[in-house]
């Protein structure tokens, strides 16, 4: 079966979702992972968006999280204040998908600035909803290409908290959510160990531990044993290409 690195990430991220999960969805690849899960093993997935849409059933691929297709046919539409208080802060969200330019050894995310905050060399978009999603969703996942510049040992600006400095830091900060529980890359999957440090727990078919180590900015430790993820199935790849992203915006080979 032929598939692109992007398809591999999306399909593996979809496997992390459980039927019945309430999931805070982002646009792009997370949106595809959620819709794929909903059309395969998780038909009762409830997709919610920070714009205030709950139980969306998008008829077309939304370009932004505020697309009108998310509203038509949804279960409910509420204000932004409601979505962040009654839904997220109160603890009614199971899963959050996060993005970010940098992810560090403890799963902390930088989506704000590179080269200093006050006079940034590269100014990134900033938190949006992610600071609170990372803190309060029960489980958070990240999808990102595995490149050294994206995986520094320590983020220079912590937009959203993973395990902070490890150990009991999350409990001490009083965070209700479980934090970043998996980082799905195009090489494999990283998951936190008991101290909160991300370790390599799985490789995609044909990938090696050395490749992952080379593309990680800290001495990457590996689980014993490192498992191999299953090959994407024909039907998963077909749903992605034919139903969810027919224009190939997010799944095109090489993307």
């Amino acid at each position: 079966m032929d598939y692109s690195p992007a398809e591999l990430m999306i399909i593996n991220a979809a496997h992390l979702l459980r039927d019945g999960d309430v999931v805070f969805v982002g646009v792009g690849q997370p949106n595809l992972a959620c819709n794929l899960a909903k059309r395969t093993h998780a038909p009762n997935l409830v997709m919610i968006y920070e714009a205030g849409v709950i139980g969306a059933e998008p008829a077309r691929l939304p370009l932004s999280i505020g697309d009108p297709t998310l509203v038509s046919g949804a279960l409910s539409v509420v204000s932004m204040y409601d979505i962040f208080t009654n839904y997220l802060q109160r603890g009614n969200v199971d899963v959050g998908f996060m993005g970010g330019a940098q992810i560090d050894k403890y799963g902390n995310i930088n989506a704000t600035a590179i080269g200093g905050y006050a006079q940034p060399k590269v100014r990134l978009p900033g938190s949006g909803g992610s600071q609170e999603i990372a803190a309060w969703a029960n489980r958070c996942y990240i999808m990102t290409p595995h490149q050294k510049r994206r995986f520094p040992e320590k983020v220079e600006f912590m937009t959203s908290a993973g395990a902070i400095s490890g150990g009991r830091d999350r409990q001490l900060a009083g965070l209700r959510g479980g934090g970043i529980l998996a980082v799905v890359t195009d090489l494999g999957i990283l998951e936190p160990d008991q101290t909160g440090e991300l370790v390599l727990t799985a490789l995609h078919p044909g990938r090696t531990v050395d490749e992952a180590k080379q593309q990680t900015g800290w001495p990457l430790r590996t689980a014993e044993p490192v498992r191999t993820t299953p090959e994407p199935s024909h039907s998963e790849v077909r749903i992605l290409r034919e139903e969810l992203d027919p224009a190939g915006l997010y799944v095109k080979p090489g993307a």
Partner: protein
Amino acid sequence: MSKLVPLSQAIADHIHDGDVVYAAGFTHLIPFAAGHEIIRQGRRDLVLARATPDLIYDQMVAAGCARKVIFSYMGNPGVGSLRIVRRAIEGGTLQWEEYSHFGMITRLQAGAAGLPFLPMNQTGATDLERANPNIRRVEDPYGGKDLLAVPALQPDVAIVHVQRADANGNAHLWGILGEQKEAAFAARRVILTAEEIVDEAVIRSDPNRTVIPSMIVTAVCHVPYCCHPSYAQGYYDRDNEFYVKWDKVSESIAAVEEWLKEWVYGLRDRNDYWEKLGEATHRRLQVTPRLSLPVNYGQY
């Protein structure tokens, strides 16, 4: 009492140099026509607040209207970077103040409720707290964990677009609600723009849908297609092609200036703008109706 005035008059009367302006709408119902009118009237030194500055503030910053932006996500939604605001921040020519979406909306909620601040739970990510002294810790008077506090935001003016309103400013809106209600109640003055002006009886037929009441509205303007390239749910689609195109246009200052000349300075108003977009675009953005079922309020 009718508050109906042309948009140009509402902007002239109620938006002054140096004002804090909140043009509301989370991706949906963004009042681009008002932004363009502010550019045409040459307002300066505005403080532009929005959760997502979006293209409307990118264009206003490009036109020299702003001295500062307050935001929580500075990107071209679904496309990538918001190039003009980003360049201005990186170049040190634009002040900024930053929150998370929740912090931003909580500031408006506090402003709308007449409170000095509102608390939020901690998030463990403390760098923004350090970068922005407006984000502070407060003790839980009931003995729990310390909370984060953000100060009320009460903009001088909120510009809020809705699908339909009566001439007094009682407004129905639906679809993504974003921060429309909070911005309207928080602001000192409210400019309400509407796709349709309807009889008060239409508003009274569905009072649960009235999100903004006349009592807080300063001026009402009838501005069909106000939101393009954003959208009004059920009226016209989001012009995703334009959002992608802006990514290209905003790469070059000369191209942006050319665009402003052609699409803002060179036109009188939104009617001109919509005409200029042309029939192919009108057709592309047309929406097939999908009606909700009426509810029965009962005759009492």
